[in-house]
């Protein structure tokens, strides 16, 4: 995907969310670090443009809720920033790539400890399949069928100076660029 395709997908998702929610009422868009955060901000901005008023956005770090903490060296923890109370809100979780689904489970657990939203939706830029838990996205930018040895690399202007999604077939040295398989 190039920048234009990404923008088109986000615009479509923004409209879908508003349509499903009958407007922006009670909406709270929360990105999952790292690249879910700028995506959430963009979605909120797009929705705000449609609705004519800002849509609250923030970020939800799920590191401490992961089920694989003990299998790796200590992970750095990201920030959680909530624009308001999650109780009664319609939370739209945003991430770049949906793969095993475990990150989403961790996010649901994290939200659970923060309060009781009226509803939780999941929006992702790319769904690459290979789910390990019964999770599905409500809004998908693009379905990308992949093999499990491949990796999906998402780059965003906010974090990587360019908007692009690519499938990496070999296993490159860790470039520091977001590839969800390594998280």
């Amino acid at each position, binding site marked *: 995907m190039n920048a234009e395709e990404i923008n088109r997908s986000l615009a479509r998702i923004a409209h879908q969310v508003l349509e499903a929610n009958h407007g922006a009422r009670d909406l709270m868009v929360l990105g999952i670090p790292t690249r879910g955060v700028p995506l959430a901000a963009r979605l909120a901005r797009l929705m705000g443009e449609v609705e004519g008023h800002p849509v609250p956005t923030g970020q939800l770090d799920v590191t401490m809720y992961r089920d694989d903490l003990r299998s790796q060296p*200590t992970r750095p923890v990201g920030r959680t920033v909530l624009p308001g109370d999650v109780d009664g809100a319609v939370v739209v979780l945003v991430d770049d790539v949906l793969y095993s689904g475990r990150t989403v489970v961790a996010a649901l657990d994290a939200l659970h400890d923060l309060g009781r939203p009226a509803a939780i939706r999941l929006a992702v830029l790319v769904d690459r399949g290979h789910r390990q838990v019964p999770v599905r996205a409500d809004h998908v930018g693009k379905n990308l069928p992949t093999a499990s040895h491949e990796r999906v690399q998402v780059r965003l202007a906010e974090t990587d100076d360019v908007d692009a999604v690519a499938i990496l077939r070999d296993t490159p040295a860790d470039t520091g660029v977001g590839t969800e398989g390594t998280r």
Partner: protein
Amino acid sequence: MKHLLSAADLSLDEVTGILDLAEEMSQVQSRPVKKLPALRGRTVVNLFFEDSTRTRSSFELAGKWLSADVINVSAKGSSVSKGESLRDTVLTVAAMGVDALVIRHMASGAPQQAAQWVDAHVLNAGDGTHEHPTQALLDAFSMRRHFRASDPDFDWRDKTVAVVGDLTHSRVVRSNVLLLRTLGARVVLVAPPTLLPSGVQSWPAEVSTDLDEVLGSADVVMMLRVQRERMSGGYFPTAREYTVGYGLTRDRLARLKPGAAICHPGPMNRGLEISADAADSAASLVLDQVASGVAVRMSVLYHLLGGDDEGGTR
């Protein structure tokens, strides 16, 4: 990170990482569910050979809010007199399958020794007159918040911290000097000559015996507790004389640098090393220090126990 035995164990990146995470952890205290699952299934033992309700409670809450199973083992009283060696006690506790031992001991070096005997992570919660690294971390945390309030981009290298009082018998000062050096701050140690540790000249700090000379340049004045029993040791003649020379009196409070903060690791001897005016003044960070304790210790526990057992940091 395998152990936290000395503030000298921490690199600048590690200190920054711990303080940053502590900021996140401090938000947990205001959540409906004050619990994170990060250390679920981990067992933390507070092995306290010396009473310290405050430090122990702080570690206990920190562990519990991270969902670890926390038990307190009081091994108070000389194990020498009970016939059980330190090694026996530590190995017995470790044999229960614990992931981390938080050790407080009246003798310097006990946690360092324990770390050589067990596989578990060892965290120094204060050893004799040696070190108290988590206290230094929470002091740095409180100071950083204080500095950021007026300048979010402040630089530690522009800051001067004066540590005043019984330096010889203070574990807090040793950890603070090491940690503040890592952060880059200028440290000035102030005490009567009888309470300056031997070899203090080789520490990464300046040394003075004149508080008034130092007062005007300090961005933080950290007052250390002076135990009244030091008087019987002949370290200074009377409490009155100590207060006149080294107490943070009302008069000195008025001469602090504008915006300067006051720290005290507690418990305070009001009227001796710190006047009530100073302890209760707006410049005092004392209550912030206590409040920061749990968040900082959560952060430290996560850094020690949040990953695999190798103790590496990703």
